[in-house]
């Protein structure tokens, strides 16, 4: 019927099935990224054979856990066409507050500390959510301002002091070093969050509405989606995750400082971008974000291992980010071109 019936020819069914397989592969947009990661791993391994050892991979994954958790929250925000530059500061603020609380309340159960951190983060997130969704301030401006404010508050709260490991109870520090079911707690937390997020994003109405709002805000409105609520939710989630990561960070390094994670937001955004999340909103997948975070994790882990001059590390990192996104685009274009070639004219 209609336009397509004119385009359909009898043998289409069979052809369609063949092309749909190809299409399914090309739909896995992170393919280029995955290939890139594998090649990179092989290369690093030839330079330092201790790279692919259990011990190092454990370190790698543990060190990437926080980045990957934050990247997940950032993905949701990018999907709604927003951006959050304040997460480094939120993380520092929540980490500092929690560290101070546990240092005077040595008996505080770790889970309470974690909940406290998450609450601090959520409060920060709600403030940003309010500015963005209710006042309609552009996310980049609102979060730029809040980045300054939260950072300033962190310094004020800490009064210039650090909270050191001896002030933290063993139970608190061991949040990051203990294991659950044989996996490091950080990694475990990341896995749980990813599982919950996967369910949330793919199997709940709210999750899909996040995509809808980003994909086409105007039609989201006529579909009866409450955009304000959705924006509030994503910034709250981001805040909560940042708060959680603040606790994990402080526990992992057993020290809380005012300048914790300053500039980390850019690394997180880079992970999302590498993972194929579109800044223009509407698209982004969990699998991509994981790969993006892992690629950055590998770089952080491998560059010191390869005995690369410290002065070259940054340039290499920048080049790899650029090359990876450019290759990803070229691969996507190739797929599109292929599709065009297959069209009947």
């Amino acid at each position: 019927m209609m336009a397509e019936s004119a385009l359909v020819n009898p043998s289409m069914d069979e052809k369609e099935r063949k092309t749909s397989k190809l299409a399914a592969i090309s739909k896995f947009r992170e393919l280029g990224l995955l290939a890139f990661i594998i090649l990179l791993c092989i290369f690093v391994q030839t330079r330092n054979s201790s790279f692919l050892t259990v011990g190092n991979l454990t370190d790698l994954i543990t060190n990437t856990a926080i980045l990957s958790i934050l990247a997940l929250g950032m993905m949701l925000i990018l999907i709604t066409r927003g951006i959050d530059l304040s997460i480094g500061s939120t993380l520092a603020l929540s980490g500092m507050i929690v560290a101070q609380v546990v240092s005077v309340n040595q008996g505080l159960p770790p889970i309470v500390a974690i909940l406290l951190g998450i609450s601090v983060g959520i409060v920060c997130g709600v403030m940003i959510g309010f500015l963005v969704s209710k006042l309609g301030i552009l996310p980049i401006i609102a979060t730029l301002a809040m980045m300054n404010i939260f950072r300033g508050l962190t310094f004020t709260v800490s009064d210039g002091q650090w909270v050191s490991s001896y002030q933290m109870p063993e139970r608190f520090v061991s949040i990051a070093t203990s294991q659950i079911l044989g996996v490091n707690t950080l990694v475990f937390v990341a896995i749980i969050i990813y599982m919950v997020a996967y369910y949330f994003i793919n199997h709940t109405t709210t999750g899909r509405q996040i995509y809808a709002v980003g994909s086409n805000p105007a039609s989201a409105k006529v579909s009866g989606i409450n955009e304000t609520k959705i924006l509030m939710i994503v910034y709250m989630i981001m805040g909560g995750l940042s708060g959680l990561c603040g606790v994990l960070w402080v526990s992992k390094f057993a020290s809380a400082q005012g300048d914790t994670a300053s500039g980390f937001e850019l690394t997180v955004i880079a992970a999302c971008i590498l993972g194929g999340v579109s800044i223009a909103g509407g698209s982004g997948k969990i699998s991509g974000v994981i790969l993006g975070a892992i690629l950055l994790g590998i770089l952080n882990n491998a560059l010191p291992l390869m005995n690369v001059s410290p002065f070259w590390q940054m340039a290499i990192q920048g080049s790899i980010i650029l090359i990876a996104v450019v290759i990803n685009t070229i691969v996507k274009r190739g797929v599109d071109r292929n599709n065009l070639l297959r069209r009947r004219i």
Partner: protein
Amino acid sequence: MSEYVLELRGITKKFPGVTALDNVHFKLKPGEIHALMGENGAGKSTFIKVITGVHAPNEGEIYLNGQKVEFSNPKEAQALGIAAIYQHVTNYPDLSVTENIFMGHEKVQKGTRRLLWKQMHQEAKEILRSLGSSIDPKSEMGALSVAQQQIVEIAKAISTNAKIIIMDEPTAALTARESEELYKIAEELRDQGASIIFISHRFEDMYRLATQVTVLRDAKYIGSWEINAISNDDLIVAMVGREITQVYPDKKGKIGEELLKVNGLSKTGYFADISFTLHRGEILGLTGLVGAGRTEVCQSLFGIMPYDKGKIELNGKSVSIQSPKEAMKLGIGYLPEDRQLQGLVLQWGIGRNITLPALSSIGKKGWLNEKKEASIAKELAEKVHVKANSIFDLVSSLSGGNQQKVAVAKLLTKDLDIIILDEPTKGVDVGAKSAIYEIINELAAQGYGIIMISSEMPEVIGMSDRIAVMRAGRITKVLDRAEVSQEVILEAAMTDLSKKDAG
């Protein structure tokens, strides 16, 4: 029980600075297809949005089956069985077809609120099949053609099991044949007991489908008639508030020497082997089904979408066109299909829009000459009869037809030989339509060569000197005015010329 499924009384809707609806009445019977007509900006779409709960009216009451209702958001209207296909495509390009169909009324498991993907995909497939379409429900919406997206919109309305279905200009993007399919679907829905409100600027749609027509003009309710109880002329008077004597003006100009010769133009995946000629003073109609590639051919000529193969000769000289700027230098102008996205800077005034293509020729050495600019803009805006007070009026405040006139005026700033018009009357009301036809004829008489893309058969036949028909990326036939009829064109649009192994 009331005799009407839906009744609206004294609806008034005000936007800052505009009264979009002023005391409007409307009554819809069960199982009725009711046409809603009116000029651009009459308030039709706003009226629909009031019914569907997108806008809350400032005054007035809505009765559903005799029961008074108030919607605070679209979801509530949806829950009561009202579904709409909106005028401007309102889909989610990044999401799957299934999600587009079920957005806002997803199927969820009781208790856990988990989305039931399997059921939704299955049901989406069934609805699409019932519409005679084989679109894969898992494919991405943005990858579909406009016509396919329209089908999904209809599927969406059906999926809600709505008792009242509203279609706001669903045929604007469809060809005659596709429209016919849509009519059948509408009738089927009606036979199943749904009531349909149908908005269109095409009289053929109304006569084919509707039994009742309500007319709005300038935000006001003009009247409601049985379709057989009102003559065409009276209907036009009701809509426009004046009489339109002749829709297609007589040709005044003479056809002159050959201007453009296109030979074997091809672009992988879009079109192949396009050849035709265009003469001074000639109007060449380019028609075919949506997706035939007419837009792409013309955009190639205009340098937007560079071609792979082929030759373009202008005034006997072979040229290569790589960018719109080059095309304009060579004397080719293009009126884009989507005036809001491609044609105009909506946030700007009329004047600035008109002079944008010609800035360099207005100023000196890159400096703007705002005085000269304003006078040129005024002259051209008057030439195409834009209805406004000043050239500083924002384009976004104009009605669709007037916006289109501004877009046409942009073409007149340059010394052009060839003007390509892509669907120049799409979504434009009768009054503005004949004004645009008049302008086109005027231009041809002045010696421009004109290529006019159109999906409306009567328009192509009424306006063109020759008609090229495209089908799936190729020109199947070039017809002279004398030999033209709807049937001949349709036949050409359906012939399959492509090689079996193409691709």
